[in-house]
């Protein structure tokens, strides 16, 4: 088994909506893989196909060396899942839900359970209907993290958590990685993905548009430059690879494509560099760049 998850050309339609449109996704064992995309881009659909809850219309999906639809029950012994929108049984306490889900998976470590309850500051005696959204999320997180599954599938697991709890969650994921577990983390909280993930796949409208390590993705995209020059620079706007130039006398701000950086810096040096700040693109910018195309297309469609 070379991959924990391997999906190619996955298609899933609901009536006339094409939720997944030839999606590719590869997750290697032992990595924390970020799965990024705007709302409605198909993240949850992909995960539910991987869990054998939905049946793909076309394409192949392999999970831990098995077929997620055919071998669902056997595969589920080896994974734990946190849904994006956790609903609990209104008359079961949180502790009962954690124990039930753990036992169905073949038992859970009581020490680890107690430790997680304490770290997440969760009262296990409350009934399901009395928990807030964040606390329902914690119930599902404790149930998943207390298991000894080799693969964790987390669908927007921190929605509803406060910043302190989000930090606890990050620590937990780092510990899981140290133990050699594989994590698929679907999210649209970019700082979380940036902090935790080894590799990232960005999807849009049911297709993967980027996939790779964060460094690889950054290399493919633009660096933002802010510089103060000795004298105003001519011809900067005309250079290939320069975008969004804002010039205020001798101060300039712009973005430059990864491959053109050398050429553009040489041009700046010609004008005398007084100060220079260069910032690699944040994941947010990466993400927005793909998403912006969407917004643009929608605006065009609306204008028609």
């Amino acid at each position, binding site marked *: 088994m070379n991959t924990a998850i391997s999906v190619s050309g996955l298609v899933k339609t609901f009536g006339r909506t094409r939720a997944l449109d030839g999606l590719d996704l590869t997750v290697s064992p032992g990595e924390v893989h970020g799965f990024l995309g705007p709302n409605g881009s198909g993240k949850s659909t992909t995960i539910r196909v991987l869990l054998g809850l939905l049946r793909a219309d076309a394409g192949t999906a392999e999970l831990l060396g098995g077929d997620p639809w055919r071998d669902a029950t056997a595969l589920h012994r080896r994974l734990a899942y946190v*849904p994006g929108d956790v609903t609990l049984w209104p008359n079961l306490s949180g502790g009962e839900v954690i124990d*039930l889900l753990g036992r169905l998976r073949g038992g859970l470590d009581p020490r680890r359970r107690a430790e997680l309850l304490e770290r997440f500051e969760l009262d296990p005696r409350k009934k399901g209907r009395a928990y807030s959204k964040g606390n329902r999320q914690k119930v599902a997180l404790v149930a998943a993290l207390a298991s000894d599954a080799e693969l964790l599938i987390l669908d927007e697991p921190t929605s509803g958590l406060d910043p302190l709890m989000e930090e606890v969650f990050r620590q937990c994921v780092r510990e899981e990685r140290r133990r050699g577990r594989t994590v698929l983390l679907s999210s649209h909280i970019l700082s979380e993905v940036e902090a935790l993930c080894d590799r990232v796949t960005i999807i849009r409208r049911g297709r993967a548009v980027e996939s790779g390590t964060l460094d690889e993705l950054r290399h493919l995209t633009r660096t933002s430059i802010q510089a103060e020059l000795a004298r105003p620079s001519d011809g900067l706007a005309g250079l290939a690879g320069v975008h969004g130039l804002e010039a205020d006398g001798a101060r300039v701000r712009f973005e430059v494509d990864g491959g053109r950086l050398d050429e553009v810096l040489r041009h700046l040096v010609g004008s005398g560099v007084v100060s220079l700040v260069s910032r690699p693109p944040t994941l947010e910018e990466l993400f927005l760049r793909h998403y912006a195309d969407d917004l643009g297309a929608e605006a065009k469609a609306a204008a028609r």
Partner: protein
Amino acid sequence: MTANAGARTLLRLALRRDRVMIPVWVGLLFVLALTVLTGYQGLYSEEAERREFAAGINTNTSLLAFYGPAHAASVGALTAWRLGAAAAVLVSVMSILLVVRHTRAEEEDGRLELVSAGVVGRYAPLTVALGTAFLANLALGLSVTLLLMGEGAAGAVAFGLAWTLTGTFFATVAAVTAQLTGNARVANTIAITLLGAAFLLRAVADSGGANGPTWLSWLSPIGWGQQVRPYAGDRWWVLALPLAGAMLLAALAYSLVARRDLGGGLLPSRPGPAQAAPSLRSPLALAWRLQRGALAAWAAGFAVYGLVFGGTIEGVDELAGDSPSTRDAIARMGGTTDLTNAFLVTAFGLMALTASVYAVQAMLRLRGEEAHGRAEPLLASPVSRVRWAGGHALIALLGTALLLVVGGVTTGLTYGLTSGDLAGAMADAMGGALVQVPAAWVPAGIALALLGPAPRAVAGAWAAIAVFLLLGQVGPLLELDQWAMDLSPFTHVPKLPGAAMAVAPMVWLAVVTAALAAAGLYGLRRRDITA
């Protein structure tokens, strides 16, 4: 009226959400009234026949207990008699379900929170729920009034108003129970238990005939509807009782709304255990945990029903008199010529139909679990779909059998104590109850067969029960062809006690249930799990 701000918009939303549910309920009850009316028009066209039939009713304990006394012998009066008690219960069930659906269920699912944050008064959701229920009852009352117009306008209006106001009264009962608890299912259960108590109270009041404790009927809201006596004096002033009762209960519900938090009930919710009991370790154990409360409530209802009706059986034979047409009418309903046995068969037939309502409800917990997203974490664990569905299916089937056993034992107990032959009574009652089990399973099988491949079509299981109810209640009256009667599983039940025991039809009914269940599980394994 800022407390009711937004009610107009919300009412339109409620009516839109109920655009299928209300017409189906109103349509079903209208068809029930229509078939009863045309049945009597055809069956008892002669005045003398009707007089004899009405006289027979008033000396028959079982008919008195189920339907109350007949006060006149016109076709209109007999139709009102037949629909006045048992059918009024259905009207009330509709009203209860509608009100809880728009109040506590909305609140429990969190949708009311979104709505209440808008420009919506504190009282608006309750006003909308009561308004929706009232409109449904009004539509129902108008449609039966128009239906009965040919038999006399005053009686038709009196009967329509009796249904409308009885339904409205129980709508306000539900409005109060919805304030008491945080759980919609419990709110429904309390309201329907009160409705059952009202029906039993008037059953006891009426079963003794003119010499019985008839005053008890005035304590029962179902009794009020009958006391209006449409086509037999049209006592309009009686309508003031449900009207005043509804206004009082509505006022109580509004004052409770003003006193409590959104999402909370008046009955406090207690904390649960920090750890699960060791037994909570399988899908079946979870299904049992989720369903045991409802099953206990149903079993208690069956026990009360059995105890009360068991006590009215003794003496049926003597009271019925010698009228051949009465004997004929009862035998047609019960299927045997011995009146005591016919009564038992009728009572257990109704009990079995009620048990099948439980069976479908228990089976459809599967759909509720799936639609609320609670099936997902289970199916993402090493639990196969068949094991998950099997747990709830097992409880639905065994629970149905348990209800009929409880009904049989309690009926046999009071029947035996009043007749002095406990062993004989127990054997008759248990036999009569147990033969119904496979038939009561069939609707649950239909529910699973729909839920498997087509989860959005599960309402078809309720439609099936409605058809079986109509066939059983009005089929004999309309003298339908046998093939039509054969569509209902309850037609095939051996008419025990009295008739010969037949094993083959029971085995066939069990096989049909098993085949339906297998088809459902086959479909469930092949489809998407949807929220």
